[in-house]
């Protein structure tokens, strides 16, 4: 008897199989996620806390971060002045908390702008052979200038403002996204399903929207996270050397730049913003590492 022949009468409904894998309870799901991707959870939580601090800065026991109080200059950290006061009597705790607003604003904006501009140019370069060579040589040129130096040169041209800082750092960062997206596009173009779509006359913008963009999303997200981290360092660096956020706005780089003159006797003015900056950048980097591992298991094995 061949294995495939079934006698007419023996055809009964298959018994309902018990659920081998019962639906995980909500708590189990969350714990499972935490267990599998600890870096995403830790990084994400820390970033979340920093965002909350930035948004709720006025409510967290802060005073006016720019209020001068010459009679209370350079007080050591105490119960009244948690992080002490600087050489103009301003409350360092309030300045550091408000400083997180600048850092996060610059980090997120640069990541978003670089991702959008870089993706657009990368798609153009990947799809239009004629433009490709020109765009990519231009990107090679931009990428040959060390990013911080490029941002410094751009800032030297314009007035100091948060907007200009964001633009300058975005210009320094977007070529990396452009190169990444172009690479993804070029490899996707060789894929049979994209070739089929092209052959069957699908219009280019539909191909880009339905076939290409969804596939660039994962590497793009990871890249954007790392750009966010380096943008925050770049902002602090620019402010620190006096070519960034205007001194009147409390940003971590500015607080450190002002504390620099006194750091040998009053190191806390420099160290509190430094700690906040490092933790924030670390959190974003952890998030990026975790996302990369989760979204690209091949890379996860390697790095």
């Amino acid at each position, binding site marked *: 008897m061949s294995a495939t022949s079934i006698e007419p009468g023996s055809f009964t409904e298959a018994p309902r199989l018990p659920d081998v894998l019962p639906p995980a309870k909500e708590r189990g799901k969350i714990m499972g996620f935490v267990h599998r991707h600890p870096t995403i959870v830790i990084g994400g939580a820390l970033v979340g806390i920093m965002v909350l601090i930035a948004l709720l800065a006025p409510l967290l026991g802060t005073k006016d971060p720019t209020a001068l109080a010459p009679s209370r200059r350079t007080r050591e950290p105490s119960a009244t002045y948690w992080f002490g006061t600087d050489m103009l009597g301003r409350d360092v705790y309030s300045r550091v908390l408000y400083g997180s607003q600048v850092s996060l604003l610059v980090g997120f904006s640069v990541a978003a702008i670089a991702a959008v501009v870089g993706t657009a140019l990368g798609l153009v370069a990947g799809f239009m052979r004629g433009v490709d060579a020109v765009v990519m*040589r*231009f990107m*090679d*040129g*931009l990428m*040959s*200038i*060390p*990013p*911080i*130096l*490029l941002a*410094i*040169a*751009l*800032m*030297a*041209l*314009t007035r100091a403002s948060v907007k200009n800082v964001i633009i300058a750092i975005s210009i320094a960062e977007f070529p990396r996204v452009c190169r990444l997206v172009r690479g993804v596009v070029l490899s996707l173009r060789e894929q049979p399903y994209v070739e089929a779509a092209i052959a069957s006359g699908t219009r280019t913008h539909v191909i880009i929207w339905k076939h290409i963009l969804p596939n660039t999303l994962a590497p793009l997200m990871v890249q954007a996270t790392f750009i966010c*981290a380096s943008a925050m*360092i770049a902002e*602090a*660096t620019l402010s*620190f*050397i*006096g*070519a960034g956020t205007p001194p009147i706005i409390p940003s971590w780089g500015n607080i*450190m730049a002002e504390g620099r003159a006194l*750091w*040998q006797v009053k*190191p806390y003015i*420099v*160290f509190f913003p*430094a700690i906040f*900056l*490092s933790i924030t*950048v*670390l959190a974003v*980097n*952890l998030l990026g*590492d975790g996302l990369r591992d989760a979204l690209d298991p091949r890379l996860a*094995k*390697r*790095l």
Partner: protein
Amino acid sequence: MLAYATRRVLATIPVILIVALFVFSLLYIAPGDPAAIIAGDQATPDDVERIRASLGLDRPFVIRFVDWLWSVLQGDLGNSIFTNLPVSHMIQQRIEPTLSLMALTLTLSLSFAIPMGVIAAWKHGTWIDRLVMMTAVFGFSTPVFVIGYLLAFVFALKLDWLPVQGFTSISHGLLPFLRNLILPAVALGLVYMALIARITRATMLDVLSQDYVRTAKAKGVGQRGILFLHALKNAAVPIVTIVGIGFAALIGGAVVTESVFAIPGLGRLTVDAILRRDYPVIQGVVLLFSCVYVVVNLIVDLLYTLFDPRIRY
């Protein structure tokens, strides 16, 4: 080999040209009158007029660019607006501390990061591996000036082992030179070390699972021989690549490190130039650093053939 080298050298020329074009046109991208930008906020109309004439702004852009490029090729980067000295001369005066800092940083980073990465890959999954990787993530995330202040605070202020700031030329003896430069070099090198250690570990993990490593093990090659002769040589290409790419971070970091440790180098020159809006100096330094970066990556490309003779394109 020679054909490959020639092609690679020739390929850098357009890149350097684009960098030069960009550096030159920086002044003209900005909104407003370049002469007024250079002159700054406190300039009198006469100053602006003088600068306009010296820039030759009445001539077409392309001609000005070619003129400028021609004089740059002859080593003339223009004169500083602030000191009126030739920019090339100012760069020469300041180049020694920066070169020393970068050389020491590079040496330190390579000699620590590569063994760290190799050991992490060898002891894959153990606490040593995790420790190296954690240190790398921290090294990544801490800005150069934060590490700089921390190191200076601990080793110079609290322990009083090393000088807080300054620079001593190597011509005054190796020990004073190293005592001044060791903290800046460690601060600057941490990010670089993190980058190199990570990529070393990753590629070594790949290489160590290859058949020829097992063969080497089977024929009785010692652990050290496998790690440092068989595996490391085959892992070299990605490592030198990251050394080349990471050089950008080294240059950017040097600008900041020199500010923290009061080292009178090119970084300080850049920062001073920005504060004074001394544009010819900024152009000169950006152009110089970018060319160094391009040349370093050219050397990396040429090293590929040394480590991997299969590369012949």
